[in-house]
């Protein structure tokens, strides 16, 4: 038995296998059909006058449109996702806590904000001023009632805020969208935390870490691998949902500004195309950021190499699909 391994040194190493690959004629047929359809689409884009391309590009860079893009769409997305992710993870940790008060509060929050449609929520945010016609008083709870009871004047108020100003603008919109997002992010983060092996928490405890530290240092970094992909999805959905800010109403927003150009100039279709192009551009950038984050949080699990091949792009995918060898 062992003798056969002895003479491998004398044997020649065989040349690399050069076999005819499996052919996929069906794929080439599909590629041809897709090519024809794509050509027809490009033809439509270039020849149909309703597109009015020069107007599309002109509309895209109008200053109210750009202001709407940066304030309403980009700042709105960043702000609401920041609130959404932070509160979402906090609510997920609360939900999984052994403290019934914390987990109850988290459950009620998720229940409420998942049930209310975002357009309705934002309209309510804009209307909150009705509840506080004299402004919102920040101070001791039930301050004025308490002072009345004690027979004293004053109301224990430190600051009075104008509710209309606070909730009627972009800040109100970001808070509304952010809280709604937190409800969804709480579920995503919960799934992520539950995906981490129980042994990890035990190992952290055995090293003398408190529960909070084990969560921050050991569990959450690993949960992020599961949390990031759906969060990218949520962020992209949020870019589009900023167009609901008109419910507040916030008019400093991409889609509203483009539409108003359309209704002023009667060029209604080109402005829609302009909006689509802007949304495509933003979402493309976000997808690149997401792929970076996935690589970072996948370190040490072999997911890094997987993410890289996945990001190989359309061209690489077409090549592998058709079985071509360049």
């Amino acid at each position: 038995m062992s003798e056969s391994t002895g003479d491998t040194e004398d044997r020649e190493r065989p040349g690399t296998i050069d076999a005819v690959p499996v052919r996929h004629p069906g794929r080439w047929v599909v590629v041809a059909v897709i090519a024809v359809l794509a050509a027809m689409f490009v033809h439509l884009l270039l020849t149909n006058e309703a597109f009015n391309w020069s107007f599309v590009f002109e509309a895209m860079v109008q200053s109210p449109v750009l202001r709407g893009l940066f304030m309403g769409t980009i700042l709105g997305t960043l702000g609401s996702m920041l609130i959404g992710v932070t509160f979402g993870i906090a609510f997920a940790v609360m939900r999984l806590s052994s403290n019934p008060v914390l987990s109850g509060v988290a459950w009620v929050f998720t229940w409420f904000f998942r049930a209310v449609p975002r357009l309705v929520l934002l309209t309510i945010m804009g209307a909150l001023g009705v509840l506080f016609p004299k402004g919102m008083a920040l101070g001791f709870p039930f301050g004025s009632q308490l002072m009345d009871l004690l027979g004293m004047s004053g109301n224990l108020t430190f600051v009075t805020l104008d509710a209309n100003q606070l909730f009627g603008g972009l800040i109100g919109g970001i808070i509304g969208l952010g809280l709604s997002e937190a409800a969804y992010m709480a579920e995503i983060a919960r799934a992520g935390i539950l995906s981490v092996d129980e042994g990890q928490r035990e190992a952290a405890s055995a090293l003398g870490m408190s529960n909070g530290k084990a969560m921050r240092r050991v569990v959450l970094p690993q949960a992020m691998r599961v949390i990031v992909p759906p969060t990218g999805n949520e962020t992209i959905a949020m870019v589009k949902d900023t167009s609901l800010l008109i419910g507040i109403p916030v008019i400093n927003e991409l889609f509203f500004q483009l539409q108003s150009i359309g209704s002023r100039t009667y060029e209604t279709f080109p402005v829609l195309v302009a909006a689509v192009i802007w949304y495509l551009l933003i979402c493309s950038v976000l997808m690149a950021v997401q792929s970076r984050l996935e690589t970072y949080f996948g370190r040490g699990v072999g997911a890094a190499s997987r993410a890289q091949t996945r990001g190989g792009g359309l061209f690489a995918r077409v090549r592998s699909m058709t079985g071509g060898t360049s």
Partner: protein
Amino acid sequence: MNAVMPLVHAVNVHKDFHGVEVLKGIDIDVAAGEVVCLLGPSGSGKTTFLRCINQLETIQGGRIWVDGELAGYVEKGGRLHRLGEKQIAAQRREIGMVFQRFNLFPHMTAAENVMEAPVHVGGTHKAEARKKAVALLERVGLEDKCDAYPSQLSGGQQQRVAIARALAMEPKLMLFDEPTSALDPELVGEVLSVMRELAEGGMTMIVVTHEMSFAREVADRVVFMDSGVVVEQGAPREVINNPQHERTRSFLSRIREEEAEHEGGAV
């Protein structure tokens, strides 16, 4: 209590999982510097008892003292008061634990795994902790793997990193929960030899294991458990070569058969 209490002093420990009693009154003392192997069939409660010592499980009856300190409670005015989470964490710092499935942190390199507790629990400076981590990894023979992630290491290497990680907090007591059971047979030796060196260095160790040769050669005492009770204990040669109880005898003969089968297969 008495002045010379052993490092681990467990008295009449009871533990049940949802009404099923798995520990039915365990009394075990482990002196400082002693190496004790817990033997017994699976389901005998030896792993559960080990986990009770560093409070990964809470006990329903009895007391466990580690280094003179009552685990998990403080006695005031004749009543036990449960310790808070932070105080329990502080008690666990004195005890290192090595798990069957290693449980290394996969998002950190070997050195980062070892540094984690000194930096984020002990408050040691990073550079200093790193130096110490490299020294510990050298001690377990992995100085060239400092920057490797656990997924890039073999099972035996991962378990040695896990031992280094547990040692980083300079524990008074090391607990090993079947440290070689998840390993390929050819990787068992490297882990056992690290444990043997540790024992020779005077570390107090409680080891749940099925490795009879390790128990025979390294342990000062073996404790045989079955169905949640200690059946017999004593010097390894006495218990393993001349067991007094029927349950110990049948367990040992079963283990011997398995070992013989293993060796027979390997030849």
